[in-house]
C-alpha cells in the first residue's frame, strides 16, 4: 500500500448525507476483473446522463452539468467534503478504489459507515471525521472561494484552511501508523503467527464441533 503523505488539495463539496456505495460506484462495475481504472466511474449515475458499462470509453459520454464534480473549479480535487453516514450500504471495496483512482486522498464527513471506514484504511484513503459545525463552516467557505484548498497534515492531525485556521482530528494510533508507513495488514498480522497457532490449538479443544469433518 502507498504511504500517506501530507495532502494539500482542492476540496470537492458534495452536500449530502447518506452517500451510499451504490452511488459511489454502481453495481455493473463490480463484475469487472480489474481493480483499477474505476476513477472514470466514480459517482457514475450522478456524473453522466447515460448508463455506463465497464470497458466503455468514457470521454465522449454526456456529462451531467448539474453535478458538482463536473464543475471546472473542482478539477483535480483531492479532498472530498460530505455530510453524515458517508459510504453506507454495500461493502464493495470498489467504492474506495474508485475514489482513490479518481485522485481523492481524504474524505471529510461528520460520520462514516463502519465497513466503508475500514476499507479506506486498506487503500491509503484517509476518512476524517469533523464535527457538524466545522463541516458547515467548510461548506460555506468553499462556496465563496473558487480553488478552495485544504491542507491535511496526518502527522500533526490537523487540517489547515487557506486563512490558516486549524481544525484537529482524531485517528486511532495504529491506523495512523499503518497509513503513514503504507503497511500491508497481512504481513503485520503474520508477526503474530505463534499467537494464532496457539489460539487455534486451544480453540479447537474448546469448540471442537466447529472443526469436524462433515459426514
Amino acid at each position, binding site marked *: 500500500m502507498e504511504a500517506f503523505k501530507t495532502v494539500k488539495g482542492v476540496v470537492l463539496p458534495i452536500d449530502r448525507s447518506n452517500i451510499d456505495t451504490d452511488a459511489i460506484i454502481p453495481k455493473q462495475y463490480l463484475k469487472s476483473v480489474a481493480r483499477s481504472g474505476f476513477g472514470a466511474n466514480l459517482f457514475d449515475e450522478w456524473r453522466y446522463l447515460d448508463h455506463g458499462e465497464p470497458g466503455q470509453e468514457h470521454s465522449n459520454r454526456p456529462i451531467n452539468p448539474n453535478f458538482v464534480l463536473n464543475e471546472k473549479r473542482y478539477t483535480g480535487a483531492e479532498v472530498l467534503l460530505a455530510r453524515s453516514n458517508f459510504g453506507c450500504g454495500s461493502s464493495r471495496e470498489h467504492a474506495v478504489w474508485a475514489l482513490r483512482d479518481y485522485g481523492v486522498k481524504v474524505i471529510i464527513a461528520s460520520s462514516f459507515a463502519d465497513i466503508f471506514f475500514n476499507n479506506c484504511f486498506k487503500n491509503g484513503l484517509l476518512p476524517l471525521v469533523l464535527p457538524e459545525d466545522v463541516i458547515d463552516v467548510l461548506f460555506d467557505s468553499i462556496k465563496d472561494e473558487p480553488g478552495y484548498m485544504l491542507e491535511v497534515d496526518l502527522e500533526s492531525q490537523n487540517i489547515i484552511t487557506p486563512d490558516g485556521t486549524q481544525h484537529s482530528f482524531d485517528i486511532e494510533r495504529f491506523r495512523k501508523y499503518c497509513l503513514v508507513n503504507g503497511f500491508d495488514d497481512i504481513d503485520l498480522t503474520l508477526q*503474530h503467527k505463534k499467537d*494464532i497457532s496457539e489460539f487455534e490449538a486451544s480453540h479447537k479443544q474448546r*469448540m471442537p464441533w*466447529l472443526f469436524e469433518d462433515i459426514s
Partner: protein
Amino acid sequence: MNTPRSHSKTLFEKIFDRHVIVTRESGDALLFIDRQLIHDLHYRAFEELQATGRTIRYPDQLFATPDHSVPTTAKKLTDIPQGEMRDTVAGLQGAAERIGFTHFDMTDPRHGIVHVIGPEQGITLPGLTLVCGDSHTSTHGALGCLSFGIGSTEVKHVLATQTLWQRKPRNMRITVDGTLGPGLSAKDIILAIIRHIGAAGGTGYAIEYAGSAIRQLSIEGRMTISNMTIEAGARFGIIAPDDKTLEYVYGRPHAPTGEKWEEAMAYWRTLPSDDTAVFAKEININAAAIEPTVTWGNSPQFCVGISDVIPDPASETDLATRANMESALTYMDLLPGTPINKIEIDRVFIGSCTNSRIEDLRQAAEVFKGRCVVVPTLVVPGSGLVKSEAEREGLDRIFIDAGAQWREPGCSMCVAINGDVLLPGQRCASTSNRNFQGRQGMGSRTHLVSPAMAAAAAVTGRFTDSRQLSR
C-alpha cells in the same frame, strides 16, 4: 448470589472475548474467524493471494456459492451467456476445484444466496465468528453468532490468516415488546426500527435484538431483522439463541451431532446476555403500534405505515435531512401529502437475502392465491432447497397461476447485476433491503415492503394494505 456488574457480559461480548487472540495497545483485537462464506464477486481474491505467494490457511472453514451474478433463468454455468457474469461464476468454481473448499455450484440443489444457505446448511451456528465479503452478513446473527460484512482486502486477510483485526463496538439493545398485529411480519418490525434510529443510528454499535416480539418470531423472521441491521448502520445484529434456535440448527448437515451436539448446546445455553450486562444504548419499540410499512425515499429510514401519506420535507427541522428528503422525492417522483395507498407501481420483486425463505414465500402465496398480478412480478427463492420446498407445498403453482414468474435462486433484482433490472423510471414494490438511487437499475424507484405487501401490490397495481386481502 448476583454476578458482579463488572464481570457481567452481553451476548456479543461473550462471543467476541472468546475469539480474541491478542489485543493491541490501541484496543484493537485480533479475532479468530471460525468460518468464511464467499460469493462469486470475490473469486479473484484467491489468485491475488496466490500471486503474492500466500496460501489459504483453512480451506475447510470456507464455504462458497455463486449468487450475485447468476441469472435467475440459468440452471447451470453454460446457460450463462459468455462474458463477465459467466467468468465470475466460473472463476469461483475454478478456485474451489484448485484449492478444495466447499462450493455449492449452480447445479447443486443446495445452491443459493450465501446468507440463505449458511443457516440452511448448519454452517452458521450459535457462538461462532463468521464473515463474508457482503454487508448483509449481519443476517446470520439471528442464530446468536458474531457475523459481519467485510471488504475485499479483509476477505483476503481472513483467507490468509483466519483472523481479522477488530475494534470492539459498543453494545446497543433494541427491545421489541408487545404483540405484532396479524398480517404483519419481521420486515415491518425492522423497517420500523430503522425509521426510529435512522440509517446511521447503529454506526459503531453491535445491536442485540430482544423482547417478546423478537422471541415470538421464527428463526427465518429473525434473519430478516438481523439482515437489515446494516441498513441502520450496524454491522452486527445479534439475537440470543433459545429453544427455537437449537431446534432450527439440530440435524442440519454441518451442525454437530451426538456428544459434540451436547457439548455445543451446553455452551450455547451460556451465551445470552447476563441480566446485569450493560448496554451503551437501549431502545424500546412497541410491536403493537407497527403497521405494514412502505419506504418512500432513497434510504430505508424514510418509511411510513400503509395508512400514512408522503411526509412534507418542509416540516423537517434538520436541514441536511430536509435536503435528503427533497432530493428523494424528486428522484422518486412523489409529492408530499400523497397517500401511500394511492401510489401505483410498475413491477414487483419478491426475493433477496432479506425475504426469500420459505416463510416469506408462504406469506406472499397466501395473498396471491386465487388472484392475478396486474404488473410484472418476479418471485426468486433464496436457495435450491427453498425452491424445492415451495414446489412441494404447491406455492410455485400459486405464483405461476397468478401470472408471476418463478425463477432459479440468486440475488436477482436486489443487487441487479444478473440482468434482472428495472427500466429507468419504473417503480417497484420490492422485498429487498436497499432503496438507494439506481439500486435496481439506473433511474429505478424502489419501495421496500414485506412479502405480503409486495404480493398485495402485485395484484392491485398500487400499495395496498395486505390485511385487507387476507382471508
